[in-house]
């Protein structure tokens, strides 16, 4: 019971703070919420009985990498970057990618039923797999880069 409470608390904390990392406008707030997400992940490691990884996560991620991030945020010009545009106009592409990725991962984890005709099922499966993989590869790399090149958006903050 306590195990489940700990897991769901840390899972909710991780997901909510990850959403806040992606959606906040201010970079410093994103960094703070990223620290929260990393510490929640460390709690999930502790709940999984991986104590060494818990310590490594706290020391290396929350203590090392995040200090690096905050230093870089401090070094580059913060006042300029707040007043600039923070989001692409590609939220629909992001949503589509997320849906495709989620559906793929859920479908890949599901055991597939084998009917009467085993070979036909295998063939169908193989063809479906090929279609799925090629479409995902096309969707994830090609379209994204083509759109970015076409709009030639500046990637700097």
């Amino acid at each position, binding site marked *: 019971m306590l195990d489940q409470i700990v897991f769901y608390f840390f899972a909710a904390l991780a997901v909510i703070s990850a959403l806040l990392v992606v959606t906040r406008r201010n970079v410093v707030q994103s960094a703070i919420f990223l620290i929260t997400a990393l510490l929640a992940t460390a709690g999930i490691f502790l709940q999984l009985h991986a104590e060494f990884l818990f310590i490594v996560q706290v020391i290396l991620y929350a203590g090392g990498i995040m200090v690096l991030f905050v230093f870089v945020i401090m070094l580059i010009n913060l006042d300029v970057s707040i007043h600039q545009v923070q989001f692409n106009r590609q939220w629909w592409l992001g949503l589509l990618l997320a849906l495709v*990725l989620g559906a793929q991962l859920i479908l890949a984890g599901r055991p597939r039923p084998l009917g009467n005709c085993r070979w036909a099922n295998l063939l169908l499966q193989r063809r479906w797999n090929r279609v799925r993989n090629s479409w995902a590869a096309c969707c994830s790399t090609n379209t994204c880069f083509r759109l970015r090149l076409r709009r030639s958006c500046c990637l700097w903050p």
Partner: protein
Amino acid sequence: MIPTSHYLFLSLGLFTIGVIGVVTRRNVIIILMSIELMLNAVNINLVAFSRLVGSAEGHVFAIFVITDAAAEAAVGLGIIIAFFPEP
């Protein structure tokens, strides 16, 4: 005892949020942060499967992934500082 699928769904959610961040944000630092989120999701997956199988190999891979994330953050932030236009 929490089933492994719950860990997998948590990891799926974190990874998808990271992908959305990489695609939709324009700030390079937040793109790097989203990559860190995705690497964390992979770590949760590895440790959950390691507990399911009952061996410590997943932990070793997770340590490799953490090392990789540290190196990637150092190099990426160095590149950002080197190429940031001076005001």
